[in-house]
C-alpha cells in the first residue's frame, strides 16, 4: 500500500483516530507520518514526537498507532472528563455528544432515563401521538383486566387509528 499523503513511498504507519466515536484510518509513510501528520497537537509531547520516537526505536515497520480522542462537544468544547469533574454541561449539544454514557448518571440521579413531563408546544406532533398511544394502551390493559370488553374494543380502535396516523406522519417525514 502506498502512502495516502504523498502517494510515493510505501505506507508503513497505520493511524486509527477515534474522535467522538467516529473512526478514521490513515495509512502513511514514515516521513508523512512525522511531517504532514493531519492531527495537529500543539503540546510538546505530540503525536509527531511519539511516532518519531517509535520509528527511531529501531523497530522495523509496518506498525500500528491508535489515537483515541475522548468525547468532546463540538459546540462548546467541553470534554467528557471535564464534565465528569465539574458535573455541569457546557451546552445542550453536550447531551447529544456524550450520549448513552450519561444513562447510568441519569439512572442514579432520577431512577429514570426518559422524560415524561411537559412538552413544548413546538415539539413535534409525532412525540405527542406516541405519548397518546402509550396512554391508551395502558387504558386498554386495565379495561381487559376488568373484563370491560366493549370499552376495550373502543380503545383498541382508537389505538389503531392513532397508529396509522403515526405511520403516515413517519412516511411524510421520509418523503
Amino acid at each position, binding site marked *: 500500500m502506498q502512502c495516502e499523503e504523498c502517494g510515493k513511498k510505501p505506507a508503513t504507519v497505520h493511524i486509527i483516530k477515534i474522535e467522538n466515536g467516529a473512526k478514521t484510518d490513515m495509512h502513511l509513510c514514515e516521513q508523512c507520518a512525522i511531517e504532514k501528520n493531519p492531527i495537529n497537537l500543539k503540546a510538546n509531547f505530540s503525536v509527531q514526537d511519539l511516532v518519531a520516537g517509535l520509528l527511531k526505536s529501531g523497530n522495523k515497520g509496518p506498525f500500528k498507532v491508535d489515537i483515541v480522542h475522548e468525547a468532546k462537544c463540538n459546540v462548546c468544547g467541553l470534554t467528557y472528563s471535564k464534565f465528569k469533574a465539574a*458535573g455541569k454541561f*457546557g451546552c445542550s449539544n453536550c447531551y447529544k455528544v456524550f450520549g448513552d454514557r450519561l444513562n447510568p448518571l441519569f439512572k442514579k440521579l*432520577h431512577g429514570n432515563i426518559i422524560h415524561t413531563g*411537559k412538552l*413544548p408546544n413546538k415539539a413535534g406532533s409525532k412525540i405527542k401521538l406516541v405519548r397518546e398511544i402509550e396512554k391508551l394502551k395502558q387504558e386498554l390493559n386495565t379495561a381487559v383486566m376488568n373484563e370491560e370488553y366493549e370499552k376495550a374494543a373502543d380503545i383498541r380502535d382508537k389505538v389503531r387509528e392513532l397508529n396509522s396516523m403515526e405511520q403516515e406522519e413517519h412516511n411524510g417525514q421520509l418523503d
Partner: protein
Amino acid sequence: MGSWIKDDGPNNNIVLSSRVRLARNLSNVPFPAMLTKESSSDVIEKIYDEEMRNGVFKEYKFYNMQDTGFVDRYALVERHLISPNLAAQNSIGAVLISNDEDVSIMLNEEDHIRIQAVLPGLQIKEAWNIASSIDDKIESKVDYAFDDRLGYLTSCPTNVGTGIRASVMIHLPGLNLSSNINKILQAVMQVGLTIRGFYGEGTEFIGNIFQISNQITLGRSEEETVDNLTGITEQILNKEKEARGLLFDNNRIMLEDKVWRAWGLMTNARSISGQESMKLLSEIRLGIDMGILKRIPVSVLNKIMVDTNNASLQKSAAKELNTPERDILRAEEIRKLLMQ
C-alpha cells in the same frame, strides 16, 4: 412585596410559602457558565426584546445585575426574588420581576432562563400553573433546548427532564421542640425529596424554617411532582399540628414561658442579631398560633423575617451600616412592627 409576604394563604400558620421554579435554556447557545459577556447580553436581548417588553413583560421590572448595586442585589435575595448565585454572578445575570413580585425570571443564572412563581401557604399546584403559563409565553418567542427523550436540557444533570423544582417553606417549631424533627426530615429524604435552608441550596437552617423540594426531574411529570410534594407536605403539616397540640396539653408552662420570653425580648431589645431575631420570631409565630399571644397579621411577622435582614436594613437606611449599627436598627424596626 410578594403576596407570600403580605397575604394569608391556605395553612399559612405552618406553610409559609409554595414555590415552583422551571429551568429552561435556549437551543444552540452555550449555557451561561460558558458564555462570553457579549453573547450573554444576546441571550437577555432574545428574551427581553422590544416586543416582549411591551407585551408579556409589560407588568415586569427589569434589573441588570451589573447595574444593580451590592445592597440592592442582596435585598432581592432576602425577598427570595433572586438566588444568592445570581447576586454573585453580577457581570452577566439579569432578572425580570412582576410588579406584584409573585413571579421572577432570572436570566443567565445557572441556566439561561429560570422562571419562579411564589404564593403564600400551601399552593404548589397554583404556583405551577402560573410558572407554566409564563413558560408557554416565553416558548412562543424563543426555541428551547429540548430533546424528545430527555426533555428540557439544563446545565446541571440534576434538573434535566421537567426542569422543575417545586418547594415549600415550612415552619416546624413543634416538631423541633418535641425532638421529632430529625425523624421527619430523614423520612422525607427517603422519599426522593431534599431539605434545604432558608435561602435555598447550601444555606443553613434558621428559625425552624425548612425548605422541602423535589429531587427527581426525569421520568416524572410536573403534575406527579406537584401532587407528591403536596401530599407529603400535608402529612408533615399534620404531624406539626399534632406536636403543637401535645406541647400545649403536656408542657403548657414551658411553652408559654418560651413564647412570652421571646415576646419580651423582641419588644424590648435595643440591639439584636439576625440569628437571634429569627429564633425568637419562630417562638412568637408559634405563640400566636397556639392562642398564647394576641393575633398579629402574618404580613407583620413576614416583614420582620424579610425586611430586617442585613441588606434590606441598609437599603431602608439608604447607607452602609456595620454590624453593631445593623443590630440597633434591626431592634428598632422589630419594636416598631410589633408594637403598632
